[in-house]
C-alpha cells in the first residue's frame, strides 16, 4: 500500500512550481498577428508558466487601454515547448514519402543534403526551381531568414496571401488598398459596431473587450451571421443571414439610404467615383481621350451643376472646391470624333442597379426581414458605424462583391475617416527598419540614409512623371518597379501549372455561370496580354525541384485539398524541406525535417500591424529544445553549405529567372553581411534603429527598452506605401483612425479614378456584370448538394499550431467536428457525436458531428485547424473544397488592379462549398 502523501512535501512542491529565476517578455508570433505581451517565468532553463503582462499604457483617459492582451492559446503556449509533436533534431525520411519512417541525422548531414539538392536544382533547372511557401507564422525573424536566403540565390517565394487568402479583394477594388484597419481601440469610438463575417469572440480574443466596452459606452453591437456565434452572444442584435448573401443584404440597405435620402451627399461627392461621368450606353468612364486632345487617358470628369458644364474631376485632391458635381442627370457630349455621347453618372447607374435590391427583393435572397434591412440602414446612416470584418469574406468566391457592397454602405453613410468608423481588417504599419534592412548592404546609419535618400530620389523621379500623385501612390509605383526583380510570385499560377488545378478550375459547373469562357481561356488571355509579366514563377520551362516550407503547413491548409500537392507536385520534387518546431502534416510528408526554435527560445519580433499599433517582442527565456535552431541560424548555415556545394558541383555562377548574373561565391558571408548580422539581437537592434530614423518608433526604442516594457508603440506610418495606406496622422494620445487624410485633407485614393471606386469599367468586369457591385450566389462549388459548408477559426487553436497542446485539448472535444443544425441533424438521422461522412463531387471526409441549435439549417460548419492526419485517410474538410479561383482576379494593369505582394492577385476560395452528409456510425 502506498504511503499517504506528505502534505508538507506536496505543499513545497506546489510552491516550488512557482519559483523562477528569470522573467522575460514573450509573445507568440502566430497567425493571430496579435502582439500580446506576456511575462514568461523560467527556472533552470525551463519555462514554468506565462501570464499577460498587461503593461500597455493607456494613451487616452477616455479610451480603454489594450490590456490585458491575451488569449488561452498564449496562456498555454509554454506547454507546447515540450509538447508531444515537438521536433528536437533533424530527421531524414527513411521510407516512402508520408510513410512515417524517419532517421535522426546530424545538422551537418541534413544541411549538406539540402544544399546538394539546392545546387543541383540551380544547376539543372535554374534558381526559380527552388520554391518557398511564404508564411506569416513564426514572426519577423523567421521571415527575414528565409526571404534573405531566397533572395540571395534567386529562388521563388509564393506570396502568403495568395496561399492563405486573407486578401479582401473588394477593399482593394474600392480603395486601391486593402489595409484600411484602424487600431483596435478605435472600436471603442464606434456608435454602431457591425460584427459582420467575423467572430471576434473566437478569433480576436485580445481585442474583443473593446466591443463590450463600446457597449458600456452606449454603442449598439449587431452581429450579422448565419450562425448564432459566440460574438452574437455579446451583441445587442443578431441578424441571421443566409451564408454568402451578404452583398444582397448590404445593397438592400444602400437602396434604403438612397430612397429615404439618408445618404451623406457631400461625402459621396468628395470621396467616391459616384459623381463621375460615364457613357450611358457602354458604362465606361468618360476619359480624357474621349473629349480632349490634350488630356490624359486617366482624367475623369464631373458635370458641374453651377455652370451646367463638363468639368475635370481633379486628380490631386478629393475636394470639389467651388464645383458642385451632379449626382443625377444625363447630358450629351461631343466626342473627339465628332459623335454625340449620352453621358450620365456612376451614381445613376448604381441607383438603377439598386432597383434589384429593394428590402423585399434583398430579403428574398438573404433571408433578413425587410424591416430589419430598413431599420439598420437608418441606424447606420445616422451613426458612426464600424464594420468588424475578419478574413472570412476573402475566402468566398464572390467575397469581393460582399466587400464592395459593405464599402458602399460605408460610403453612403459617410462612415470612414472618422473615429469609430471604417472597416476593420488588417493593416501593415510601423517597422520601416525591417523594410530598409532588405535593401541595405551593410550595417549602420550611413547605409540606412543612403537607402532612404535613394528612395527619395527614385520617388522624386516618379513625381516628375506624375506630379499630381500622392506619396502613397508613388510608393506603390516604386514597389511595382522592384517586384519583377524580387522573389515574390502570386501562387495561383504555380498551382495551376504545377499542382494539378487545371481540371478543377476549369470545371464550369463549379464556377460562376456568368463566365463566358473557360478559366483557362481567361488565364491564357491574361498571360498573353502580359498582365502578370515577370511574376509567373517558376517561369515556363522550369520545373520546381526543391520546396521549402518554413513554419507553414500547406498539406493542412492547401485550398483544394492536399491531393493536388501530393499527387501532382510532390512526385516532381527532388527534395521537400520542412523547417518547423512541430511535426506538422507537411513535415510528415517531407524528405528532410529541420527543427526550429519556438518563441520563448529566441529573440523575435511580431509582424508590425495596426491592431495594437505596437511592436511586439518575444525574448529568449530558455535555450531551444533538443538540437533546434533559430531559422536565422539554419539559413545562415545553409548559405555556407550551399556555397560549399556550389564549389563542389562546379556551379558557382549562374543566371536567375531574369537572366541576371547570380553567384554562390561568398554566399555564407553575404548572408550575414560578413558577420554583421550574425544573430537575432544584432538584427533586431538594426531594425529598431532604422525605424527610429524613419520616424516610426520613438527615439528611445531599443532592445533594452523592449526588455523592460515588452512592447513599444509606433509613432508614425513611415515611408513605405503599405504603411501610408492607413492615411492618417499618428497621435500619441489617440487611437489610430484610418483614412483621415482622405476625409480631412482630401488626399486622393490610390485608385484609377483617385476616388473610392464603385465602377470598375474593365471589359472583363463588365462582361461578368460586376462592373457595378451586385449579389451573386456562391457558385455550385463541389456539385449540386443541399448543405453549404463554411468555416472559420476555432477558439482553441490558431490554425493547427496548438493542435498538440494538451492543456488546450482538454478544453474542447479534441477531435475534428462538423457542426450542423438540429433540423438538418434530424433530417439526416444524425445525433451529436455520430461519425458522419461529408461528401461532394470533389471528395469526402469522415468526421464527428456536433449538433447545435445555433447553426442555421442548410449550413454545416467545420472550424479550421484540424491536421489531415486527424482524419481517416488524411482526408479532412479541404478534401471537399475545390479551391476555385475567381477569374476576374486575373485582371491586371487596370489602374490599381495590379499585383502587389500580399495584395491584388488571384486567390482561391474555400468557403461555401456544397456537400451532402451521411451518418456512418454512432
Amino acid at each position, binding site marked *: 500500500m502506498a504511503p499517504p502523501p506528505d502534505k508538507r512535501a506536496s505543499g513545497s512542491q506546489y510552491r516550488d512550481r512557482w519559483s523562477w529565476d528569470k522573467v522575460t517578455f514573450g509573445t507568440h508570433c502566430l497567425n493571430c498577428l496579435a502582439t500580446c505581451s506576456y511575462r514568461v517565468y523560467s527556472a533552470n532553463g525551463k519555462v514554468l508558466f506565462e501570464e499577460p503582462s498587461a503593461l500597455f499604457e493607456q494613451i487616452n483617459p477616455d479610451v480603454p487601454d489594450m490590456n490585458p492582451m491575451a488569449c488561452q492559446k498564449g496562456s498555454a503556449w509554454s506547454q507546447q515547448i515540450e509538447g508531444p509533436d515537438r521536433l528536437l533534431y533533424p530527421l531524414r525520411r527513411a521510407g516512402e514519402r508520408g510513410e512515417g519512417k524517419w532517421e535522426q541525422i546530424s545538422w551537418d548531414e541534413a544541411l549538406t543534403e539540402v544544399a546538394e539538392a539546392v545546387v543541383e536544382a540551380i544547376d539543372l533547372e535554374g534558381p526559380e526551381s527552388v520554391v518557398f511557401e511564404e508564411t506569416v507564422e513564426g514572426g519577423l525573424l523567421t521571415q527575414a531568414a528565409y526571404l534573405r536566403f531566397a533572395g540571395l540565390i534567386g529562388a521563388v517565394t509564393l506570396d502568403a496571401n495568395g496561399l492563405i487568402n486573407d486578401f479582401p479583394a473588394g477593399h482593394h477594388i474600392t480603395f486601391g488598398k486593402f489595409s484600411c484597419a484602424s487600431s483596435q481601440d478605435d472600436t471603442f469610438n464606434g456608435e454602431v459596431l457591425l460584427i459582420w463575417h467575423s467572430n471576434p469572440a473566437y478569433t480576436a480574443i485580445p481585442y474583443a473587450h473593446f466591443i463590450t466596452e463600446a457597449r458600456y459606452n452606449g454603442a449598439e453591437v449587431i452581429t450579422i451571421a448565419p450562425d448564432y456565434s459566440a460574438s452574437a452572444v455579446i451583441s445587442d442584435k443578431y441578424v441571421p443571414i443566409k451564408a454568402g448573401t451578404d452583398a444582397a443584404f448590404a445593397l438592400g440597405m444602400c437602396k434604403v439610404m438612397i430612397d429615404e435620402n439618408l445618404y451623406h451627399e457631400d461625402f459621396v461627392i468628395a470621396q467616391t467615383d459616384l459623381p463621375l461621368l460615364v457613357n450611358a450606353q457602354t458604362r465606361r468612364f468618360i476619359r480624357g481621350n474621349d473629349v480632349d486632345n490634350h488630356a490624359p487617358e486617366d482624367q475623369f470628369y464631373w458635370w458641374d451643376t453651377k455652370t451646367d458644364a463638363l468639368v475635370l474631376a481633379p486628380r490631386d485632391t478629393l475636394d470639389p472646391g467651388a464645383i458642385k458635381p451632379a449626382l443625377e442627370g444625363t447630358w450629351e457630349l461631343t466626342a473627339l470624333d465628332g459623335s454625340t455621347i449620352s453621358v450620365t453618372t456612376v451614381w445613376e447607374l448604381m441607383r438603377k442597379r439598386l432597383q434589384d435590391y429593394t428590402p423585399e427583393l434583398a430579403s428574398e435572397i438573404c433571408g433578413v426581414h425587410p424591416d430589419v434591412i430598413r431599420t439598420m440602414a437608418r441606424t447606420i446612416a445616422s451613426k458612426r458605424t464600424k464594420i468588424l470584418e475578419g478574413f472570412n469574406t476573402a475566402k468566398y468566391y464572390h467575397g469581393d462583391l460582399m466587400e464592395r457592397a459593405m464599402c458602399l454602405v460605408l460610403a453612403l453613410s459617410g462612415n470612414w475617416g472618422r473615429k469609430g468608423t471604417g472597416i476593420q481588417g488588417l493593416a501593415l504599419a510601423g517597422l520601416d527598419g525591417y523594410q530598409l534592412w532588405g535593401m541595405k548592404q551593410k550595417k549602420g546609419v550611413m547605409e540606412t540614409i543612403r537607402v532612404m535618400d*535613394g528612395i527619395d530620389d527614385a520617388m522624386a523621379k516618379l513625381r516628375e512623371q506624375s506630379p499630381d500623385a500622392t506619396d502613397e501612390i508613388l510608393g506603390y509605383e516604386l514597389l511595382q518597379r522592384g517586384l519583377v526583380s524580387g522573389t515574390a510570385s502570386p501562387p495561383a499560377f504555380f498551382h495551376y501549372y504545377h499542382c494539378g488545378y487545371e481540371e478543377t478550375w476549369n470545371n464550369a459547373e463549379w464556377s460562376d455561370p456568368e463566365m463566358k469562357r473557360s478559366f483557362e481561356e481567361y488565364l491564357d488571355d491574361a498571360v498573353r496580354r502580359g498582365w502578370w509579366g515577370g511574376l509567373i514563377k517558376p517561369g515556363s520551362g522550369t520545373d520546381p525541384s526543391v520546396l521549402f516550407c518554413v513554419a507553414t503547413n500547406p498539406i493542412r491548409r492547401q485550398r483544394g485539398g492536399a491531393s493536388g500537392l501530393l499527387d501532382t507536385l510532390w512526385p516532381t520534387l527532388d527534395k521537400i524541406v520542412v523547417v518547423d518546431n512541430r511535426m506538422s502534416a507537411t513535415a510528415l510528408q517531407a524528405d528532410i525535417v529541420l527543427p526550429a526554435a519556438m518563441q520563448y527560445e529566441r529573440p523575435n519580433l511580431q509582424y508590425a500591424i495596426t491592431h495594437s499599433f505596437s511592436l511586439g517582442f518575444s525574448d529568449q527565456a530558455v535555450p531551444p529544445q533538443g538540437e533546434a535552431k533559430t531559422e536565422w541560424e539554419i539559413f545562415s548555415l545553409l548559405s555556407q553549405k550551399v556555397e560549399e556545394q556550389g564549389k563542389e558541383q562546379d556551379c558557382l555562377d549562374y543566371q536567375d529567372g531574369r537572366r541576371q548574373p547570380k553567384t554562390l561565391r561568398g554566399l555564407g558571408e553575404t548572408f550575414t553581411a560578413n558577420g554583421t548580422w550574425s544573430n537575432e539581437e544584432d538584427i533586431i537592434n538594426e531594425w529598431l534603429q532604422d525605424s527610429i530614423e524613419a520616424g516610426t518608433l520613438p527615439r528611445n526604442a531599443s532592445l533594452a527598452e523592449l526588455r523592460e516594457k515588452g512592447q513599444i508603440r509606433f509613432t508614425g506610418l513611415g515611408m513605405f506605401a503599405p504603411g501610408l495606406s492607413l492615411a492618417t496622422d499618428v497621435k500619441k494620445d489617440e487611437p489610430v483612425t484610418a483614412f483621415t487624410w482622405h476625409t480631412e485633407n482630401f488626399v486622393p485614393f490610390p485608385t484609377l479614378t483617385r476616388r473610392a471606386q464603385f465602377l470598375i469599367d474593365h471589359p472583363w468586369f463588365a462582361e461578368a456584370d460586376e462592373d457595378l457591385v451586385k449579389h451573386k450566389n456562391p457558385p455550385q462549388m463541389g456539385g449540386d448538394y443541399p448543405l453549404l459548408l463554411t468555416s472559420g477559426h476555432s477558439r482553441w487553436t490558431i490554425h493547427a499550431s496548438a493542435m498538440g497542446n494538451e492543456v488546450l485539448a482538454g478544453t474542447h472535444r479534441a477531435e475534428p467536428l462538423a457542426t450542423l443544425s438540429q433540423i438538418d441533424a434530424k433530417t439526416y438521422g444524425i445525433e451529436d457525436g455520430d461519425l458522419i461522412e461529408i461528401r461532394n463531387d470533389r471528395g469526402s471526409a469522415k468526421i464527428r458531428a456536433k449538433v447545435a441549435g445555433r447553426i442555421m439549417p442548410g449550413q454545416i460548419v467545420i472550424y479550421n485547424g484540424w491536421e489531415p492526419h486527424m482524419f481517416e485517410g488524411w482526408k479532412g474538410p479541404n478534401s471537399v473544397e475545390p479551391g476555385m479561383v475567381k477569374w476576374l482576379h486575373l485582371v491586371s494593369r487596370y489602374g490599381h488592379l495590379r499585383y502587389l505582394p500580399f495584395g491584388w492577385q488571384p486567390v482561391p476560395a474555400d468557403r461555401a462549398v456544397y456537400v451532402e452528409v451521411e451518418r456512418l456510425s454512432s
Partner: protein
Amino acid sequence: MFVYSLDGLKIDGDLAKDVEIEDNEITARSGVYQTFGKLFIAPDAEAHQLAVDGKWPEKLREAAELLAYDFDFGEASLDGSVSAEDFQAEYIRVFDVGSGDGPPAPIVGGAYGGVDRRKKMEEVARFFEYFGLTTTPDDPRPPDHLATECEFMQYLAFKEAASPSPRLGVSFHRAQDDFLERQFVDWLQEFAAKVEAAETMPFWVWAAKTAAGFAKADMQHIRS
C-alpha cells in the same frame, strides 16, 4: 510583412565619405569634445605639462571659439610641485582603481545610475556601431569610458557637420541629443559630484565639473 526588393533601384553614392567643410559652430562642438577626450585619457607627460601650465582651459576655449552659445570653461592649473608620475597616479586612484575598495569616482558610465554595467556597455557599443564606429576587444578602454564617449560625441558632431546628405546630418544631430540624454549627461553629473567628494587635486574637480557642465549646456543647445 514582406521585404521590399528594390534591386532594380540603383542607389549610388557612399555616405561614409564626408564633404569638405569650413570650421563652424558644429565643428567647434566637435572640437570641445575632442579636447575633453584628450583631457580624460590616462594622462601622459604632455597632458601633465599642459595642466601645470594652466593650458587646458585655454585649449577648450580655442576649440570653442565658434561655439554658438557662451560657456565659461573657467581657469585651472596644476600645482607645479605635482610630478607627472603623481598626476598619473592620482588619475588611476580616483578614476580607475582606488585604494582597496574601488575608485571613488569611476570614469565609466556603467558605474552610475544603478544599471547593469554589462548591459550598459552593450547598449553603448551598439549605439557606436550603428553610427559607424566599432569598438575592438583589444581597445584598452571600455566603450563607456568618459574619453571614449567624448570621442564619440566629437565624431557625431563632426559627421553632422560634414554630412553629404541633409537627412544624414539630421540623424547625427539627433544621435547626439539621444546620446547626451541617455548615455552621457546624467552620469557625468554624478561623476562630477563624486570627483569633488574624492579629496583629489582641484584640477580634476575642475575637469569633471567643466565636462559635466558643458555636456548639459550642449544638450540644451542641441534641443534649442
